[in-house]
């Protein structure tokens, strides 16, 4: 039953992954491996839901979801940039913290639902012109506003990284902070800003689940999608454009099992659950064989930078 409905559903399933992946790409480009994606997504999801539930304003909900994600990232940034703590441990701690935080804040909201007025904001909107293209229009350009925000964010991030001076500075910091420092790029400021931006995007990814996709609050609503995003960063070769394809591909893998159940092709859902990780490993192997610089991680990734040790 691979139909237009399936591809459309794959885009929706991929959108939270896309936001989280973009957030992690921008974070890692600054040389910081933040494994707290899952935690930041949950923080964004619950704060977005809480604000949306009490104010009935979708825009405020989105804003606060981003702020909540950035707040999680701020804790991480303080630990790893200012205190130069171990990045892996700090990130894992953030995931655990975020999970607990969301569970705690959301205790009285479990099973609650937004008003119809609120949900109307996230209705499917057909883009004039583009939405009329046969097949593709229905699959790509007949979605809620959040999905379009995902497309736009990915393209803006791509342009920012590869076509602006500031983006070049950021990449330089991720590759060789000492050289960037010598070129008088304000390293700490850059790192903080981009880690916070990354957190905000992760928060939005979580909010997509709680505000537009499910949209009922359930504890642990992300159910491990943050980890898929971490794998997706590698799959996409730290490239925001490729992240679009990767996110929708992984989103499709997430739901394809349901479409195949009951058809002649009976592949267990477990196989598809494994697929994102297997694909990531395969990509890792290929990249390391080709020793290509294009899809390699930032060189200074997860190494704390001490100016005095230059």
């Amino acid at each position, binding site marked *: *039953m691979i*139909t237009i*409905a399936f591809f459309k*559903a794959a885009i929706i*399933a991929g959108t*939270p992954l896309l936001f989280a992946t973009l957030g992690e790409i921008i974070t890692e480009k600054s040389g910081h491996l933040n494994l707290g994606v899952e935690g930041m997504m949950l923080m964004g999801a619950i704060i977005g839901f809480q604000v949306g539930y009490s104010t009935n304003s979708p825009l405020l909900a989105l804003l606060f979801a981003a702020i909540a994600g950035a707040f999680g990232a701020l804790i991480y940034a303080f630990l790893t940039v200012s205190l130069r703590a171990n990045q892996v441990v700090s990130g894992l701690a953030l995931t655990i913290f975020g999970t607990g935080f969301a*569970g705690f804040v959301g*205790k*009285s909201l*479990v*099973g*609650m*639902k937004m008003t119809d007025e609120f949900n109307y904001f996230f209705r499917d909107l057909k883009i004039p012109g583009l939405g009329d293209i046969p097949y593709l229009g229905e699959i790509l350009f007949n979605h809620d506003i959040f999905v379009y925000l995902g497309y736009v964010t990915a393209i803006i991030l791509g342009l920012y990284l590869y076509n602006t001076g500031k983006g070049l500075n950021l990449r330089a910091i991720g590759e060789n902070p000492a050289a960037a420092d010598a070129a008088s790029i304000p390293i700490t400021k850059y790192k903080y800003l981009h880690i916070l931006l990354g957190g905000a995007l992760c928060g939005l990814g979580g909010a997509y*689940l709680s505000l537009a*996709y*499910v*949209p*009922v609050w*359930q*504890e*642990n*609503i992300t*159910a491990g*999608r943050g980890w898929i995003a971490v794998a997706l960063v590698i799959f996409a070769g730290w490239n925001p454009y490729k992240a679009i394809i990767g996110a929708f591909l992984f989103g499709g893998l*997430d*739901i394809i099992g*349901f*479409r195949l*159940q*009951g058809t002649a092709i*009976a592949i*267990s*859902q*477990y196989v598809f*659950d494994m697929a994102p990780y297997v694909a990531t490993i395969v990509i890792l192997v290929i990249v390391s064989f080709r020793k290509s610089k294009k899809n390699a991680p930032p060189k200074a990734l997860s190494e704390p930078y001490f100016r005095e040790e230059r």
Partner: protein
Amino acid sequence: MKRVLTILLSITLVLALAVGCSQAPDQGQDQQEKMKIGFVYIGSATDAGYTYAHDQGRLMLEQELGDRVETVIKENVPETQECEKVMTDMIDQGCKVIFANSFGFQEYVKRVAEANPEIIFLHCSGSIQGPNYSNYFGSIEEARYLSGIVAGMKTQTNKIGYVAAYNIPEVIRGINAFTLGVRSVNPEAVVKVMWTNTWFDPAKEKDAAVALLDQGVDIIAQHQDTTGPQVAAEERGCWSIGYNADMSNAAPKAYMTAPLWNWGAYYVEAVKSIMDGTWTNEPYWGTMKDGLIDLAPLTEVAPEGAQEAVTKIQDQMKAGSFDVFAGPLKDQSGQVVVPEGSTVSLEDQLAMKWFVEGVEGKID
């Protein structure tokens, strides 16, 4: 000055220690009158589903027995060695009875129970039994059958979707009972099953429901712990049957009813019998007759006449004269597997691995 400070601090510490020690036994004496009971939960007490239902049962226990009991809970306990630690910790806190509410805790319960013969352990949905431990569960199938009646009367496309977690006998039994209920009022209808391989993933459960709706079903039933499937039905303007709790919050225009557990009925009875010393390690299997199983009140969305049809069968269940799995039952290929006049024994129900006629789906 430093020396004086050191001495002062030392004295404070010693005093603190003395105060701490002297208070502890007092508290102990207070609590001796109360029986302390531990609840090990797989999920969160506010999950609006499975664990929520158990916690409502705990609250009922506290209400009924008042001062005679004190309960402690531990939520989100994984089905790993971790739960052994949680149980040991509860024993250290003075718990005399421990309820563990998930199937996966089974072997750990057994191990801790054997190491602590003076404590009573009760495990939900398993099959272990020993001098100081046993298991409890019930025939939720009865309520599923009733909810099937509601769905069977409501459907217009004669296709009903069922979002199901894992293909274990507990879930399969539920699907069969539901389908028998559906076809008792609507022999044309079929039930399409979608496996999710998860108990708890709202987005995925919703996707599964959407995939079913894309195949033309107009009612979604579920054996899942979140409201994801309900929301999918609501968004498509279709209808739904919940599970574990009233889910009308999540889907006010779709939700019709839900099979419910009333764990309090068992918890009160079990704790009372332990207090009286009449407790035995006989496994507990509760039914609608015992008050352990119930159906949530039908909402306005439910079809006309459903209430009467449900009440008629429910009264028979409460009287103990209705058997969900009474023959003749046909399997998916149309062959009679349970002939007229016989039924599926409880033992066979607990190992059920086949679908009745009318179910569209496969057991891997």
